[in-house]
């Protein structure tokens, strides 16, 4: 058994009266990619968002249950959300670079966690961009606008931006679904690379992607986890009919 990077215990999310996620308990291993799959509206993105307390921002959303990181329940009112989000990075479906230079995009997070030293910031920017396989393409135009990058580059920039604050966990919400196949391949390569250091949880609609990049897969349906197992097993020998139906494309 590997180290557990992040673990949800009986997590439920309600929007008003409606339950979007019901009693989900999942352990996410460190240095491994876990894929969350399931039909649209099954609660997988909502679940992902509650892991770094992004649902706090949605009026009327209520998250109950525990989320454990290294012996600390972060789903408690006492948790410092700012510090928590430093530990958990997040990447969205649509790249959302800030309207600033490439450099400033990366330096944004570290600055807020108190790093002012120019040399240190330079170093972080370079490391993060290298880590996100974007350094070679951008090193000569670090101070150009990030909006001039292509969609795939912007997404890698967003990944670089989230690693710049040195998280241990990275959440990705369909990070490649707005990208062309070449950029998608690059992002997948990058995820495989990052897996060596981070606990990665990724929501994806692409079965092949889940099969290619993840070691564990959780199948969500109607706000509940139907099946959670090694990716190989889920895709070759699913235990439940609903899982096999979904994977073979019979619904969803």
């Amino acid at each position, binding site marked *: 058994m590997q180290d557990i990077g992040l673990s949800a215990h009986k997590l439920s999310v309600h929007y008003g009266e409606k339950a979007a996620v019901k009693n989900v308990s999942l352990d996410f291993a460190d240095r491994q990619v876990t894929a969350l799959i399931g039909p649209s509206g099954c609660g997988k993105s909502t679940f992902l968002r509650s892991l770094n307390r992004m649902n706090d*921002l949605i009026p009327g959303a209520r998250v109950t249950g525990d989320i454990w990181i290294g012996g600390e329940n972060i789903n408690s009112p006492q948790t410092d959300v700012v510090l928590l989000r430093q530990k958990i990075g997040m990447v969205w479906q*649509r790249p*959302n670079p*800030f309207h*600033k230079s490439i450099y400033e995009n990366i330096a944004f*997070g570290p600055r*807020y966690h108190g790093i002012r030293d120019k040399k240190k910031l330079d170093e972080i920017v370079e490391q993060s961009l290298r880590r996100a396989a974007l350094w070679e393409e951008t090193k000569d135009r670090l101070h150009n606008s990030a909006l001039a990058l292509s969609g795939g580059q912007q997404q890698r920039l967003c990944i670089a*931006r989230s690693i710049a604050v040195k998280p241990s966990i990275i959440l990705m919400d369909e990070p490649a679904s707005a990208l062309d196949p070449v950029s998608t391949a690059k992002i997948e390569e990058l995820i495989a690379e990052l897996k060596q250091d981070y606990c990665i949880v990724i929501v994806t609609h692409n079965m092949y992607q889940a099969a290619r990049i993840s070691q564990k897969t959780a199948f969500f349906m109607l706000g509940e986890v139907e099946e959670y197992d090694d990716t190989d097993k889920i895709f070759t020998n699913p235990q439940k009919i609903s899982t096999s139906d979904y994977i073979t494309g019979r619904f969803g």
Partner: protein
Amino acid sequence: MAQSVGKQQPKPHLREEWVGRVYTFLCILFLLLTIFSMVYFVASKGLSTFIINKVNLAGFLTGLKWSPDSEPPLFGALPFLIGSFSTSILAAVIAAPLGFCAAVFMTQIMPKFGRKIMQPVIELLAGIPSVVYGFVGLSVIVPLFRDIFPGQGIGIAAGAVVLSIMILPTITTIATDALASLPAGLKEGSYALGATRWQTIYRIVLPTTMPALLTGIVLGIARAFGEALAVQMVIGNSPHIPRSLFESTSTLTSAITLSMGNTVMGSIQNNALWSLALLLMIMTFVFVFIVRMLERRSKL
């Protein structure tokens, strides 16, 4: 038969299309004609001061003394220019921070209350007639300034305060729209990096929407620049460059409205007022031009 009908008269939907085209074309023509003739009229009248009456243009722009009835008449518009610029810019300095904060509050902090209640209330300010603003200024702000500061209470400061309230809706509405149309995900991206709400507003939301916010300010200044009545009621209307913010002075607009009725059409005194109007119009064009430039920049 069907063929011959098709040839002889256009099909109904094509006729509609044609009527629509002609109608919109006529409307546009009328609009263009109105604008063009107004510009032509103001320009020809305003320029005749310099062409027919041989008033020196440089002297007009830099002269300190405005006394059209003296012998020889003196036309120095600099006091009005200074009055106009200082009141409108000071008004923007007062109104911009208030408008931004109101917009931030209405979109980021309490969106429901803000958009449902506060925004209509602020927009209501735009509908109040300027004479009411002037009257309130005259009976509230002027006496207040008279008690606190040396002087009569009238002057640039009183004018700027009245104008700042008048342009608040412009600045607030534009800022609110800009903040509300922020690209989705930007704020979340900032929060996810561990930034607090204030840091997100200050470092991401405001810089991203800056061109639009500046547009709001420039439009506000343009409105303040052109406002006549309310300013005239509180500024004192003496054509001098004031030594303090609480001393009587004039603006381009207040000078025009004040003397308009006392001049004879075609006289040098009347033409000089048209020259002031021309100056105002040119300044408005400059403001519109600045707004255009800002908008182009914001699209990058």
